[in-house]
C-alpha cells in the first residue's frame, strides 16, 4: 500500500477516538448539573482545538507560499482550508446540540459563536475564491493573502470569551475539570489531531495531482 504513513496515522487516530469516546461515554462520570449532556465536550473541545490548529497551519503555509513560491505550500493551503472548514462546521453543530439542553437555545449571537461562524464563513469563501481563479499562480497568491487576513479571526475566537461578555463559558483548565474527565478529553484531542493530519495528507495528494494536470494543460496550450 502506498502512502502508508498517513493511513497509519489516521488509523491510530480512529483507535484513539474509540478509546477516548468509550471512556468519555462509559467510564467518566456525568456532570453534576448537566448530566450526560456534557459528554459532548469530549468531541466538541478537541474539535475546537484542532480547528484552530488547522487554520494556524493554513496561516503559516500561506506565508510560506508568498515567500517561497513552492507549490507544496499552495496545495497545503487548499487541503488545510478544506479540512478546517469541515471541522468548523462540525464544531458549530456539536456546540448547537450541547447548547439547546444547557443554555436553552440552539444558537445566539454571542461573541464566541458569532466569531466562530465568521471564521467558518471566511475560510469557506476562500475555498469558493479558489474555484473562481483559473491561473494557478494568481489563485495561490490571492488565496494566501486572503487566508492571512482571515486568520486574524482565530485569536479573536480564542479570546472572545475573555475580552467580551458572552454566553459561552471561558476556557476550562485542569483545575475546573474533574481529573476523571481530563483523560478522555486528552485522548480525543490527539485522536482528532491525527485524523485531521490524515485528511489533510489525503487532500494534499489530490491537490498536487490537480496542480500537475493544470500545469500540463497550460504547457500544452
Amino acid at each position: 500500500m502506498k502512502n502508508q504513513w498517513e493511513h497509519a496515522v489516521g488509523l491510530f487516530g480512529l483507535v484513539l477516538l474509540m478509546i477516548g469516546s468509550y471512556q468519555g461515554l462509559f467510564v467518566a462520570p456525568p456532570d453534576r448539573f448537566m448530566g450526560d449532556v456534557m459528554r459532548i465536550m469530549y468531541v466538541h473541545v478537541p474539535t475546537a482545538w484542532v480547528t484552530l490548529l488547522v487554520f494556524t497551519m493554513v496561516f503559516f503555509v500561506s506565508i510560506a507560499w508568498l515567500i517561497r513560491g513552492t507549490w507544496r505550500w499552495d496545495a497545503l493551503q487548499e487541503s488545510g482550508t478544506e479540512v478546517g472548514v469541515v471541522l468548523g462546521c462540525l464544531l458549530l453543530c456539536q456546540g448547537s446540540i450541547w447548547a439547546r439542553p444547557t443554555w436553552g437555545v440552539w444558537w445566539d449571537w454571542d461573541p464566541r459563536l458569532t466569531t466562530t461562524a465568521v471564521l467558518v464563513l471566511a475560510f469557506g469563501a476562500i475555498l469558493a475564491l479558489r474555484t473562481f481563479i483559473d491561473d494557478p499562480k494568481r489563485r495561490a497568491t490571492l488565496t494566501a493573502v486572503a487566508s492571512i487576513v482571515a486568520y486574524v479571526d482565530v485569536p479573536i475566537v480564542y479570546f472572545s470569551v475573555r475580552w467580551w461578555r458572552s454566553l459561552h463559558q471561558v476556557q476550562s483548565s485542569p483545575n475546573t475539570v474533574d481529573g476523571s474527565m481530563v483523560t478522555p478529553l486528552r485522548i480525543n484531542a490527539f485522536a482528532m489531531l491525527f485524523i485531521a493530519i490524515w485528511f489533510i495528507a489525503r487532500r494534499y495528494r489530490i491537490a498536487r495531482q490537480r496542480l500537475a494536470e493544470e500545469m500540463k494543460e497550460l504547457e500544452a496550450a
Partner: protein
Amino acid sequence: MKRNKLWAIGALFVSGSALAYIAVGDLGENLVYYWSPTEMVAAKQKAVGATIRLGGLVEPGSLVPTGHTLNFRVTDGTTTVPVTTQEVPPQMFREGIGVVVEGTVDGAGQFTSKRMMVKHDNEYRAPTDGSTPSNAAMFGTMDEG
C-alpha cells in the same frame, strides 16, 4: 517572487492591525452582549422599549412560578431587576445560576423576557452525594471578559 513578499507583508500588516484594533480598541464598550442590572438601571429611559439582553444571577429565593408565568429577580450583587416570563425555562434554570434574558423593560423597571438562556460556567464536576453548588462557582458564570 518579490511582489509576493510585498503581498505577505501587506496581508500580515492588515491582519495584525485589525487584531490590535479589536484587542486594545474600545470595541467592547460599544458591543455588549448583555447589560448588567446596574447598567440597565443606570441607562434609565435609554433601555426602555427596545429589545435588550440582561445578564445576572437568578437571586436565590426570588423564584415564584404562578400558573404559566414565572417571576424572579436578576441580580449582579448591587442592583436587582424583577423579571417576568411566560417562556418555558431551560432545564438548567434554577436559583443562583447565571442567566441571560432577552426582552424589554418598562418604565417601572419590570423586565419581560421572551427568550431565556442559562449560562454555564467552565466547571465540569462529578456529582457527589448531597453536594450543593458553591456560590463562588455560580458567580464564576458571570465573569466579565
